[in-house]
């Protein structure tokens, strides 16, 4: 008997007793759903925790500051910095050539006046004394917006600015708090227009110092949850560079920020977590201070791994219990179908034909239960994640995102099928050993 014929025969036998088959499939499905849901939620939680540690950027990300390293802080995740040291293009190029570096992403910052019509700042560096409080000093932070996934920024409302945009920005909760906007109200700022002014120092013909600003209009398109470097406004490199270059071209006797470092910092992504220590050491050898949560990430990953092992164990136990159900159901089926098995033998079925038929029955129930359980488990994980996401975002925090773990789904279905086949082995062997004389009910 071919495998296709054995499959058809097994399928007929399963469908002949739909109630019993359905109960068995449901048991497997529930176990598979539990397994899938728990592991998906564990992976999501792990991702969220690590994302929080890496502040939304890649785990192998290293922040390079425009400052010399402090030798006493070697090996520390977030060391104190030494004396300021500008980062120029030559330094960026040197760092990019370090072995183990995947990509170097520049960060450009610029001093900025922030004018927000209709809003009054209540704290921080408010421009005055004649002003109403609508204008504050803050910092514009420019990054390559086409590489957002590589930066430690997370969106809590709205969207990121379009790459290269000079009229779209995101703001941080720290800036909004200066205007008394906190919690869920932060979302309401999306769509507002602010005016950004880069100051530049001049000396008039009579020697009087005067500041003239380069003003641009910008629309707030989103709110990010991390402080963008030391600034409250996240923008494109283009916008930040234009502002920084305007300020830097000023009279240094009037404005000390004139001639400042072209890059406020760099975000270096190593080729992997294993490369982070060596890359950090190499960057510090070039002369710049670095920070990265490598030690913290390693610790967290160890603890999360333990949790995953425990959850996997619980899931496997659930599947094993379901497998016992399959064994029990098939043993009962063998008892009930003694005559039928005898007839099969009598018309020429070999022992292994009977064995194969019963194993396929078990496998079909396991596979079906695995598929249904995987879908249910993913749906359950998404439901829980949606609830958690809603709570986190209501608190002004970054939410969670559940990916579709295809590999886990496949593994669950395959695992459930194999467990079911294993569970069906004893009943299948018992059926195979039944003599053909059962057909004549001696």
């Amino acid at each position, binding site marked *: 008997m071919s495998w296709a014929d054995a499959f*058809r025969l097994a*399928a*007929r036998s399963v*469908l002949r007793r739909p109630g019993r088959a359905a109960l068995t499939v449901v048991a497997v499905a529930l176990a598979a759903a539990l397994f899938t849901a728990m592991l998906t939620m564990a992976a999501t939680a792990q991702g969220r925790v690590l994302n929080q540690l890496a502040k939304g950027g890649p785990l192998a990300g290293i922040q390079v500051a425009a400052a010399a390293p402090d030798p006493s802080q070697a090996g520390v995740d977030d060391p104190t910095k030494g004396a300021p040291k500008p980062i120029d293009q030559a330094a960026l190029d040197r760092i990019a050539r370090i072995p183990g570096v995947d990509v170097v992403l520049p960060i450009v910052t610029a001093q900025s*006046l922030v*004018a927000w*019509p209709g809003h009054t700042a209540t704290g921080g560096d408010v*421009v005055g004394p*004649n*002003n*109403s409080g*609508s*204008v504050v000093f803050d910092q514009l932070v420019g990054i390559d*917006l086409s590489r*957002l996934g590589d930066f430690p920024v997370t*969106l809590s409302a709205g*969207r*990121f*600015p*379009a*790459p*290269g*945009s*000079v*009229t*779209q920005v995101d703001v941080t909760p720290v800036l909004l708090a200066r205007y008394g906007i906190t919690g869920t109200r932060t979302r309401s700022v999306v769509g507002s*227009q602010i*005016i950004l*002014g880069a100051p530049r120092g001049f000396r*008039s*013909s009579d020697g*009087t110092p*005067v500041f*003239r*600003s*380069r*003003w*641009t*209009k910008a*629309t707030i*398109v*989103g709110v990010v949850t991390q402080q963008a470097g030391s600034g409250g406004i996240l923008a494109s490199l283009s916008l930040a560079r*234009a502002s920084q270059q305007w300020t830097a071209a000023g009279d240094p006797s009037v404005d000390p920020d004139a001639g400042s470092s072209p890059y406020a910092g760099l975000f270096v992504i190593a080729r992997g977590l294993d490369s982070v220590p060596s890359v950090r050491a190499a960057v510090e050898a070039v002369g710049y201070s670095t920070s990265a949560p490598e030690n913290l990430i390693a610790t967290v990953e160890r603890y999360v791994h333990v949790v995953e092992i425990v959850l996997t164990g619980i899931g496997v136990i659930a599947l094993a219990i379901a497998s016992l159900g399959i064994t029990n159901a098939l043993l009962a089926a063998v008892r009930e179908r003694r005559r039928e098995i005898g007839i099969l033998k009598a018309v020429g079925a070999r022992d292994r034909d009977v064995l194969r038929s019963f194993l396929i029955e078990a496998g079909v129930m396991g596979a*079906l239960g695995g*598929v*249904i359980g*995987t*879908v249910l488990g*993913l*749906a359950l994980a998404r439901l829980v994640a949606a609830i958690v996401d809603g709570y986190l975002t209501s608190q002004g925090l970054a939410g969670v*995102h*559940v*990916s*579709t773990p*295809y590999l886990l789904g496949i593994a669950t279905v395959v695992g459930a099928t194999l467990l079911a086949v294993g569970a069906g082995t004893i009943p299948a062997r018992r059926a195979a050993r039944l003599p053909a004389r059962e057909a004549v009910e001696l």
Partner: protein
Amino acid sequence: MRAGHRIRLAVSSVVVLVLAGCGSTGTDSVARAQPAGPRSTYVAVGGSDAVGSGTGDPLLDAWPQQFFRHVLPLTTVFVNAAEPGSTVAEAITDQAPLAVSSRATVVTVWLVSGDLLDGTPATTYGTQLLQLLTTLRGRGTTTVLVGNVPPLAQLPGYPACLNGAVRVDRGFRCPEELPGAAALTATSAAYDQVIAADATRSGAVLVDLRSAVATSVARGGAPFLDPSGAELSTAGSTLVAGAFAAALPKGDRHTA
């Protein structure tokens, strides 16, 4: 229904369920790129009124700021080259180079109080203004708007000088001998004539502030000057911004 068909239907249903569950995993979190448009640069050339000295919130309420915010396209960059107390001659050396180096596409010019109260003759003023306007016009691609003189009672600084003020920071300088009202009125009328002529000759756009302010006063509008009489009030700044906006050619305007 035959069992074989039932089996195929069951399998198909499960496959459809699985595929339906594997939907998209995230929303587009990056804003769509805005439509590309020509970047325009607006430079304001002027005096203390252009830096909003008399307004409640100079960085927001100065009339060039209002003009920039409400009238010009979203991608416009605005540089305020104005210096309090500047005359046209000073603007030629201190402010015009910034406008040129910034590659300004729109320039507003309103420099009347300093020269008028300083007693600069209309002919001299006209010559200097023409030089300024011509420089700012560049090759003729820059839109330059030039404002004329408001009625004397609303001339920033004049009421303050009448009241005995001498100098307020660098906002204005009152002459030691303030000309009489009749003489100033005649001079301001001459100023208006040369301003109009210079605008025509240079291709600049004349902004008739005299009429706009007179109309506002006749209608009983909000005070044009601040209580000291030295600077534009917030309402006055809004009026001036509106007058310049009305004169701005359509092609330079915000089109949303």
